[in-house]
């Protein structure tokens, strides 16, 4: 039978963001996006994702970094560590944690979309021969990665699956643990791909020390207009998504 997640979410709930469901979307134009994927070697891959989700074979960690020069909250950079997963048969990415250099935006991302988020300094620099990203906090490097030798591809070739964010969700006056499905629309202006290079990663500081990247998979860099849409689905993290998913709004 399909592998099912077995991550114990209780320990994560204490500091999980509190989400109030509301009709809200966030559009940001001309966002640079670096995505680097690595296979993860782990003894117990089921324990990486909650019971609502299914791990993929093999599990893959996605480092997804946005940088925007303008937004309603000012310039920002956002770095996410996500794990490939499935909700039933649908491709999803379970958010392990995120870092953001814009406190006002971070607060909104946490409260409206359940981003488990902490501050950091984030640099994302594009050159013609490579794209470099550095995430640091208080002088400590949390993540350093690159895309090397970019070549153009079409936006159609690049995929960013919807995120599944563990949060405490207020519904009908009650706070419940839920996976919030974060759907993001991407309008591509250009896209490149290249060779992934991971120079440094501190998995414990991102929330899961078991995430040891092993095999490089791919790297892409794109420029997109991004819209994080209002939340349409939430999901009970303790039971399969096919049984525990609830529609909370229309698009």
């Amino acid at each position, binding site marked *: 039978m399909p592998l099912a997640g077995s991550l114990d979410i209780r320990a994560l709930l204490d500091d999980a963001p509190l989400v109030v469901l509301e009709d809200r979307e966030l559009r940001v134009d001309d966002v640079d996006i670096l995505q680097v994927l690595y296979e993860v070697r782990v003894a117990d891959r089921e324990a990486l994702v909650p019971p609502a989700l299914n791990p993929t074979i*093999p599990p893959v960690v996605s480092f997804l970094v946005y940088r925007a020069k303008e937004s309603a909250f000012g310039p920002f950079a956002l770095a996410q560590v996500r794990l490939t997963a499935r909700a*039933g048969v649908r491709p999803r990415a379970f958010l392990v944690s995120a870092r953001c250099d814009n406190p006002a935006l971070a607060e909104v991302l946490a409260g409206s979309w359940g981003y488990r988020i902490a501050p950091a300094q984030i640099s994302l620099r594009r050159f013609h021969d490579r794209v470099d990203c550095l995430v640091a906090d208080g002088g400590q490097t949390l993540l350093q990665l690159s895309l090397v030798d970019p070549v153009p*591809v079409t936006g159609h070739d690049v995929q960013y699956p919807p995120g599944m964010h563990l949060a405490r969700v207020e519904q009908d006056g009650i706070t419940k643990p839920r996976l919030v499905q974060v759907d993001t629309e991407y309008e591509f202006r250009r896209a490149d791909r290249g060779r992934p290079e991971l120079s440094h990663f501190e998995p414990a500081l991102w929330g899961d020390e078991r995430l040891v990247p092993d095999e490089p998979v791919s790297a892409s860099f794109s420029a997109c207009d991004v819209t994080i849409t209002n939340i349409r689905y939430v999901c009970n993290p303790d039971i399969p998504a096919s049984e525990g998913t609830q529609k909370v709004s229309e698009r």
Partner: protein
Amino acid sequence: MEFGIFMELSVPRPWTADSERQVYENALEQVRLADELGFDYVWAVEHHFLEEYSHCSGPDLFLSACAMQTSRIRVGHGVIACVPQYQSPIRVAERAAVLDILSGGRLELGTGRSATWTELGGFHADPDATKKTWDEFVRVIPKMWMQERFAWQGRMFSMPERAILPKPIQKPHPPMWVAVTSPGTEIDAADRGLGCLGLAPGGFADSEKKVKSYRRRIEQCEPVGAFVNNKVHTVNFLSCAEDGDLARRSGLRVASIFSYMASQLLSAKEVLPTHSYPSEGLLPALRRESGSPGDAAKSFRGVTMGTPDDVADAIRQWEAVGYDGINFIAQFMEVLPQQYVLDSMRLFAQEVMPQFKQGAPRSVPAGVA
């Protein structure tokens, strides 16, 4: 219409020391029965590392066992991976020829290139190159079979002159096919004179368009081999019982778990931005057809599940679309009792198959009269 059975050899957890042997034994029993009942083909996949979904990494060995336990059913690779990191085309030609000899000239060679990162990444194969390597494989393999000695200077593969042995029994060579999951591969099949082995479910309108396009183009093809194989097959789930509700319930269990298991694999397209896998493939096609576990085939019109009349009606629809054959998945992950699978095949052969076989000539292997 021709009919076949499709073997994934899926092995559900929990695995015991006996699990895989039991799955193989059950499959061989189904193949022996299919041979007795008049099914035309048994096809075996080639997959690697696909836990539970398919433990069929040595399909030529499995098909050899099938050949030795049967007398008339044709044994087909459905399909062999034409990826050099998996195997050299020399080894494909050699081993396929052995299978053709052991089966008395009953080999069908389906070709493909893998679509999952799970497999390609496991071999450190380059997904960008698989279309090109497949193309070179299908051009050289028939030459290896037909020429006494063979030499090649290619892009992916080169060799000095050698005799590639043994040679297949079927002359000029066994029929060749290509797996069609990605849009456009039916055109590749037609242009090379290869049979079209459909592996993804789809709607009638889209299928009819593909079949028409294939038929039109293959009339002007330059075949990679010595002859054109212009057959078009599709794949379907088989569950046939006098109790239609039972048949549909049982068939849906197979279809549902098939989609669910397939979805856990990583498609190459999902993790690597590449033109080589332009879109779709089997996994997204299955996702489109299934909402969630339990309703995998609800929207899949034309499923061959139900009473013999239901199944015959569905086959007529596919026949009208232009298909020459349907290959059935009758079991997956052992979710159905073996006896149910065997009874379903028997009822199909007794009640349904004759409606499509009367007056139809038997499939005659090329060169074996």
